[in-house]
């Protein structure tokens, strides 16, 4: 059942050819060095096609540990890409609502608010005005200085901060923002954002 669903995602087909369980992906994987995470095991589980095991995976923190660096794509001797398999598993986990059963999965709402909403508001995936050293202490005192003097600094650098026309950090026109919003509506991003908000709230 889950295998059929996964096969509807081209990233699953592209990501899993035939895994020989060599573990090369795990050896190179930065996530495996930090978390209790093993991409070889993920490839093996989906290859075996056991529904109970795949369901466990979809409900687990495991699929959310990958950093999508795609180092595994370069190295796999059989042309598999565990990073792509993970993308397909994450999408299915959200679709089935299983992501709510893991702590890492539930973080999707936070990401929607920190990246998704910013894209819809500014047309950029990050925006200087919205980044604070409270949530981002690693930005350091230099960031506070930048935020306190954003306009003057950006002027010196030749940026077009909030200006019309081209240039660094320009304001994106309403017509262009409208097209972006319509694409999000047409392709299911809005629906997914709504789902994350509603289910996250419950």
């Amino acid at each position, binding site marked *: 059942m889950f295998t059929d669903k996964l096969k509807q995602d081209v990233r699953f087909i592209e990501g899993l050819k035939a895994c020989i369980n060599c573990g090369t992906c795990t050896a190179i994987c930065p996530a495996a060095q930090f978390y209790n995470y093993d991409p070889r095991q993920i490839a093996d589980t989906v290859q075996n096609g056991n529904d109970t095991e795949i369901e466990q995976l979809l409900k687990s923190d495991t699929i959310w540990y990958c950093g999508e660096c795609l180092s595994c794509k370069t190295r796999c001797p059989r042309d598999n890409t565990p990073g792509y398999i993970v993308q397909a598993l994450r999408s299915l986990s959200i679709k089935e609502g299983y992501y709510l059963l893991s702590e890492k999965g539930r973080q999707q709402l936070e990401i929607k608010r920190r990246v998704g909403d910013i894209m819809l508001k500014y047309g950029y995936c990050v925006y200087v005005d919205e980044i604070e050293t409270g949530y981002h202490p690693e930005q*350091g005192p230099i960031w506070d200085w930048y935020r306190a003097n954003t306009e003057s600094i950006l002027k010196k650098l030749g*940026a077009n901060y909030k200006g019309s026309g081209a240039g660094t950090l320009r304001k994106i026109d309403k017509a262009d923002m409208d097209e972006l919003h319509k694409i999000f509506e047409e392709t299911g991003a809005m629906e997914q954002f709504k789902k994350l908000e509603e289910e996250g709230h419950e």
Partner: protein
Amino acid sequence: MNDAGKKRYWKEYQKNIANDDYYYARSCIRQNFFPGSEETFLKILRETLGKNVFDDPHQTTCTGIAYHSSIVPQQTTMTVVARQFSLMNEAGYKNFIPSCVTSFGIYSEMMETWGHFPETMEKTKEHLKAATGRDFKLPENIVHTSDIIYKFRNIIAAKAKYKLINKATGKPLNVVDHIGCHYAKIFPEKGLGGAEYPVVLSGMIETWGGKVVDYPERRHCCGFGFRQYIVKENRGYSLSNSKKKFDSMEPYKPDFIVANCPGCSYFMDRWQYTIAEMEGKTYDENGYGIPVLTYEEMAGLVLGFDPWKMGMQLHQVSVEPLLDKMGIVYAPADKYKDVNGKDLGKPLQPNNLKCY
């Protein structure tokens, strides 16, 4: 060794880079975190190299960060990518040059997927039409912006004001090159030198007089990890991976780090500050840390551009030790002034990391 055979072998590590008439696709991360770098790139292309490059106000985010942190469906990203291509078609260009390494990976991945699964291309066409009324054609040439600087590195060398050489000792500077994972690890054939021998930055460094540091974790990820950085609770992942690299490069005494990915440059700058504040550890002998440059800043310094007009005052790790080593003439006092010379006040000093 048979030279023809050698050339044939290396051919697969080369790629075609258009010579002129570029459509510039800007990077959200670079504009926000290194807001002087893209203007520096355009200045080099237009003024130093005399190239035609179009800076289109109509483009938006490529959605790459959202895609890799699994908050948008693949078709959303495909359709936004298709819209960017449509804008390029409309402007009459064929050579697409994204500034962001994540974007470069995104454009390459979507094009590859359209090729392998033509039905996804059909779907994207339908979506784009329905949402915007647009159609699109693929670019003829797509390379990362660092590839362009690599291509013209000899011209830049000929016009250089400074070299990547320690002025006092006459020795080449030790430079760490960090290639963003999505530059060549996803599609090795799309990166200069592939994933094994990426030359895009080392080629610039050596041409401009520096020496490349080959250290054990040279090809390890900076640790961005998308959701692993965005969510505060996960950020130890990001920090630990950068730390692994710093620990590995430290014995080689790098004079600076350069990256072609804006995310990597940002992380390697800010995680040094974080490690200094958390553990009191810095990776140079004097407590300032190792300066981290974007490749635009490195090229700009070589060409004699003013570091404060390129935005190098926005790094948390001070760049002055590098400027001094290179013998660059600059005005230290202008660092924290606005365009009219008005003093903007100084940022607070970190507790452990020394700053200028």
